[in-house]
C-alpha cells in the first residue's frame, strides 16, 4: 500500500465526500472552502490523474451539458483500494499522534 501525499489524501477525501458530484471543478471548490487556501488547478488535476492511474479512483464520462459549452463532466468515484489507502494513511497519523502522548496533544490544542 502506498502512502498518500497530503494533496492526494485531500483530493481522495473530497471525492469521497462529494459522492455523485465529484468532478474537477467541484473537487477544487470543496478543497478551497475547507482549507481556506487557493489551490491551483494543476494541484487538483495532477493528483487526480495519479490516483486514477493507481486505481484509487475510477472515472467516467458524464453527459454533455449546455452550460459547459457542450462538454461533459468527468466524474470520479473512490474505489475499494482508494478507501484502503485513506484508512492506511489515517492509521499512520493516529499511530504517530498516539506515540507523542498527552503533552503534545495539549500543546497543539492551546
Amino acid at each position, binding site marked *: 500500500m502506498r502512502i498518500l501525499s497530503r494533496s492526494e489524501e485531500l483530493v481522495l477525501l473530497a471525492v469521497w465526500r*462529494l459522492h455523485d*458530484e465529484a*468532478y*474537477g*471543478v*467541484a473537487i*477544487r*471548490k*470543496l478543497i478551497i*472552502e475547507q482549507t481556506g487556501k487557493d489551490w491551483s*488547478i494543476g494541484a487538483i*488535476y495532477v493528483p487526480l490523474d495519479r490516483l486514477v492511474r493507481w486505481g484509487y479512483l475510477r472515472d467516467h*464520462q*458524464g453527459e*454533455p*451539458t449546455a*452550460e*459547459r*459549452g457542450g*462538454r*461533459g*463532466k*468527468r466524474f470520479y468515484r473512490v474505489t475499494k483500494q482508494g478507501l484502503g489507502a485513506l484508512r492506511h494513511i489515517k492509521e499512520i497519523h493516529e499511530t504517530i499522534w498516539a506515540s507523542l502522548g498527552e503533552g503534545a496533544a495539549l500543546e497543539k490544542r492551546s
Partner: protein
Amino acid sequence: MRRSNSKAEGTREKRKRRGIRRTPPVAARRLLETFLDRTGREHLPGDFEEFYNERLVTGNRLRADLWYWGQLLRTIPWLIGNIIYWRTTMFWNYMKTALRNLARQKIFTTVNILGLAVGLSIFILAMLYVNFYLSYDKFHEDSGRIYCLSSIDRESSEHTNAPMPIIAVLKEEVPEIENASIFLQTGKRNVTVDGKHFTEEEVRYADSDFLKIFSSKTIAGEKETMLDGPNKVVLSRSTAVKWFGDQNPIGKTVNYESIRDLVVTGVTEDYPVNSSVKYKLLISFDTIRNDYDNWEYYSPVFIRLAPNADRGAVETKLAVLLESRVPESDEKPVRFFLYPFTKLIYRPASLSSFCTRTEPIQQMMIVLTAILLLVVVCLNFASLSTARYLTRAKEVGLRKVLGAHRGQLVSQFLGESVLMALVAFPLSLFMYRLLVPMFLQLMGLKIDMGIMNKPLLLLACFGTAVTAGLLAGSYPAFFVSAFQPATVFKGDLRSFLKGTRMRKILIVAQFSLTIVLMIFSMVFGRQSNHLLKTNLGLDRSDVMVVNVHAYGMSKLEIFRDEVIGLPGVAGAANSTYLPFDLSNAADIRIEGRSAESAVRVNSYPADYGMVETLDMKVLQGRGFSREFQAKDECVITRSAAVSLKLEDPIGQRIILREQPHTVVGILEEFHFEHVFYKMQPAILSLEDSSFVYMFVEVESADRIPELKKQITAKWASIAPGMTIEFDMLEDLFVERFRDTVKGQDLLRVFSGISVLFSLLGLIGLASYTIERQRKEIAVRKILGASVNGIVRTITLRFLALVAISNAIAWPVAWYASRWFTNFAWVSRIGVGFDVFLYAGLVSVFSAAVAVIFQARKAAVKNPVESLRYE
C-alpha cells in the same frame, strides 16, 4: 457546496439577462479543444469554462480572459513534449513499415529511386551548366561598374568598340569614369625568348588602367606601373612558366615578331575559364600608341565608373564629347553608349564583339528539357507508387481502425516518398559525378562543374529533391489515405478502380511529355542538320586552311606557287579572312556616281585562285586570272550587282576604299560569315598583301597527311623559324556550330531517358492492371478466348492510352517547335509531319513491346490457378 453552486448559477443567470458573454475567448477555447481532443481529456475544456465563469464573478472580463489565455500558454511546454514523444514513436513505426515495404518490392523501389536519381542528376547538371554561364565575368571586383564603351555607326549597327584616341580624353571629359583602357586584340604572334621560338595566341595590348579595371592577382612586378610606358609586357602565369620555367621572368627581354624587344614587367594569375577577357601576353599600349593615333581606328575600350555614378549621365557627357572631340569622318559614330561588361556574353547577335557569345536559347533548352525530364520521372514515380500502394490497402484500413487521422496517413505516405527522394539525392550526386565528364566531352567544354564547393546550389538541389519527392508522392498519398476501412476489408474494388483511372491519366501525361520531347529533339536535330547542309555557295570539302600567322609577307606569293606545284594539290589561294569568322564591311559605288549611291557590302581581299579553290560559282564573266596582269580586278555577288543597279556589270568600274576596281565577274551568293547571320552582298577584290591564311584544295583527302609534311617543309625553307598550322575548312565550319550540334545530341540523350522511364511506368501499370484482371483473363480463357486474342485485347487497351498521349502531344509539340525555330534561327526549315509520325510509331511500338510481354505471361497461365486464387 450545493448552495455555492446555485449561487454561481444565479449570478450567471443575472449576467445572461444583462447580455454579458459567459464563454471564454473563442480562439483560445478552440485552441484548447484542438490540443486536448487527441489526448483523452475532453472534459477539461468544460471544467475550464466553469473556472472561467467563476473568475467572471469575482473579477472583470479582461482579467478572466487573460487568465484563460495564461492557462493555455502554460500548457505549451507539456504539449510540445507530448507531440515530440508521439511523433518519434510514430516516426519509427512509419520508418519500419516503409523500409519493410521498400525491401519487399525491390524492383519498384529500384525503378523509383533510380528514376528520381537520374532525373535529379540531370537537373543538377542543367543547373550547374547554367550557373557557369551566369557566373561569367562576375568574379571581377565591382564587375557591375565595368562597361564596354560601345558605338552606333551611321548604318545604325552597334559595335562594342570605340575610336582609339578617345582613351586620352575620356577621363578628363567625364569625371565619373574612374579607369579606362584599350583592349586591342591580335591573332597569333611569334615571340623569341632566349633563342627559342614560341607562337602565342591571345596577345593583347592594354593601358595601365586595364589591371585596375579587371582584378587579377599579381604574382610578380609592380601592379601600378607594369604597363606604363612603351615596350613592356605582362605575362599570364602559364606563359611565364612556359617561357621561363621557375626562373624569375621580371626584367627579362623577349623579341616580339622580330620587330621589337619587350621587357617583362609583371606576371599575373591566369583568368578563369568563365572570363571574357583573357591574355597570354599583355603588351603596354604605349608601345604602339603613336601608330594608332587615328580616329578611324577602333578597338574595344573598357571603363570603370565611380561607385554611385549614373550611367545615363555618363552617356549624356559622352554625347557632348562625341560632338566636341571626335573629328568628322565617314567612320564617326552617331552615338556612344555603355554596354554592361557582365552582359556581353548574352548580347544580341546584332551587337558585334570579340567576346564569346552564348546562345541563351541553348541554356533555356537544356534547363527546359531537364525540368521536363524531372516531371516525367515524378509522374512515373507517382503512377508506380499508386499501383504499389494498392497492396497496402489493408495496412491503411487497419491504421484507420486504430484511430489514425487521414492527415497522419498522408504524412506517412508523403514521408515515404520523401525518404526515397532522400535516398535518391546522394545517388544523384554520385551519378552527377559520372555524368559530368561525359557531358563536358559531349559539349566540348572545359569548365568547373564541381558542386561540392557550391553550398547554395547544393542546398537548392537538395530542396528540389525533397520537393520532387513531395510532388511525386502527393497523389499516391492522398489516394491511398482515402481508402475506407470497411470497403478495404470487404474486398470491394471500387476504390481501386478509381485509382486505375488516375494512374491512366498519369501515364497519359507522362507519355505526352515524352512524345513532346521526342518530337522536339527531332525538330531540333533536323534544324541543325539543315544549318550544316546550308548551301554556302562555296565548296568546303577537301579544302585545307594553312595559317601562316604573318601579315603581308611577299614570300607568301612564292610559297603559294610552290604549294600549287606539289602533287595532289588542285589549287591554292591566299586570304586575309577565315571563313565563317569575322567579316569586313565596306562601301562600294559605281565610278563617277555620288557617295550617296554607295552600297554596303562585305569585302574580302582575295588572291588569284580564290574563286576556283573554293569552287564559287561564276554566273557571268570570269574569276581572277593572272593572264590579264591587271591588279585592280574584282568580282561581286549577284545581290551586290542588284543593289548597285548594274545593268551590264562586266567591265564596270567600281570604287572600293577610294580605289577603282574593274568588275570581271558575277558570283552566285556565298556565305563567308557565321551562318546564324543573313547572307550579305559581297565583293572579292584582288590584293597582293595582308594575307594570313592560305586555302589549299587537295585532290583527295588521303593525301592530306603527306601534303602537310611537304607544305611544312616548304614553309621552313622559305621562312625559317616561323610556325605554321593546318585546319580543314569543314572542321572550322563545324566548330562554329559546335554548340548547336552538341545541344542536339544532349536533347537526344534526354529524350531517350524520358522514353525509357515512360516505358518503365507503363510496365508498372501494365503489370498491376493485369494482376487485377487475372480472373477476367481466366474466365475469358474458359469461355474459349485464345491466348493471342487475350494478348490483343489487353495490349489494345494500353495502346489506346498511348494513342491519346499522341493526340495530346502533337499539337503541343507542333506549336512549341514552331515558336522555337522561329525564335532561334534565321535560316530554318518547317516542322515536317513525318517527325510526328516517327514519334507516334516509336511510342506505340515500344509501348506494345512492353505490354505484350506482360500480357502473354498472364494469358498463358492455367486459368485454374487464377480462379483458385483467394
